């Protein structure tokens, strides 16, 4: 049995390689906000209040492009609706926690933290304090995100755009799913999701980000039925 502290450290360790892409991306997010002409305090407030990578950029871009606040808020909600799926997966491992702990832990659930903690949970189902791993991944992500976006706000236009650092984001997610390419059923699900996301990219409110996972999960359900 691992102690709480060991699990927390393990979570920090498991997510830390992703900081190679998260920190540059956070810097870009902060810099874009300032470049679009928003109050630096507001740009930072988003990292604290929304704490959701790409959705923060989309929010500011929509507002600066003249969209109404309602459209911007709705888009953030739809982009982040993928967390519902993460929550459904994680709920199995967190069900023993008190309601208050569930409410608190929810704030730090992010893509990479979900991915790495879920991998760890699957291999260590019987650990008593599993949620400390999720707190470890979430807190590491939170601290790095705050520092990175703040740095971007301060650096502003000094961030070299020609480096194309946004490209680090697809790469970090490739690193997460690449081992599942060994399984044919997962490959089919991934290709379904990827192609759907391109097909529906122009759907309103950036809804491709939740439409394509739903289509891919339907395909997964069909595959499960075929397997039997």
């Amino acid at each position, binding site marked *: 049995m691992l102690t709480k502290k060991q699990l927390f450290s393990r979570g920090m360790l498991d997510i830390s*390689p992703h900081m*190679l892409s998260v920190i540059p991306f956070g810097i870009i997010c902060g810099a874009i906000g300032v470049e679009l002409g*928003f*109050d630096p305090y*507001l740009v930072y*407030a*988003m990292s604290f*209040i*929304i704490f*959701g990578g790409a959705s923060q950029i989309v*929010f500011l871009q929509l*507002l600066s492009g003249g969209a109404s*606040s309602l459209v*911007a*808020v709705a888009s953030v*909600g739809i982009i*982040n*609706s*993928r*967390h*519902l*799926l993460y*929550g*459904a997966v994680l*709920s*199995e491992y*967190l069900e023993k926690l008190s309601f208050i702990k*569930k409410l608190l832990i*929810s*704030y730090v*659930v992010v893509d990479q933290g979900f991915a790495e903690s879920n991998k760890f949970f699957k291999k260590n189902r019987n650990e008593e304090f599993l949620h400390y791993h999720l707190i470890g991944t979430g807190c590491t992500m939170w601290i790095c995100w705050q520092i990175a976006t703040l740095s971007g706000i301060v650096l502003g236009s000094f961030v070299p755009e*020609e*480096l*194309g650092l*946004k*490209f*680090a984001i*697809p*790469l*970090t*997610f*490739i*690193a*997460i*799913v*690449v081992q599942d*390419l060994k399984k044919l*059923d997962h490959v089919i*699900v*991934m*290709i379904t*999701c*990827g*192609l759907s*996301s*391109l097909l529906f*990219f122009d759907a309103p409110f950036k809804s491709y*980000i939740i439409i394509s996972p739903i289509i891919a*999960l339907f395909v997964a359900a069909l595959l*499960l039925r075929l397997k039997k």
Partner: protein
Amino acid sequence: MTLTAIIFAGILTYFTRMTMIALISRDMLGDKIKAVLEYVPSAVFPAIIFPGIFINDFGTFIEMNDPKIFGALVAVIVGYFSKNIIATISAGLVSYWFLIFVVFS
């Protein structure tokens, strides 16, 4: 004005994170649903990966000879064999930079 919108966006985002964790109990999800949920990472992350590679900042498709496609392929190959996150990201970025700064410059 903008701050109000940020707060609403934040509350909405928090609800997407909290709803399934705090309000759903294990018994509400059947075995079939749980089996499908096993596929969540494979069903969600390509929706971040594919547009990040194939669609540019202006929302249009890239050319088939775009350096990003090469960078992503290198990342997939290095990631598959190395099983190392840092190696995967670095390989993708370095090969991408090699093409844009050395080959195409």
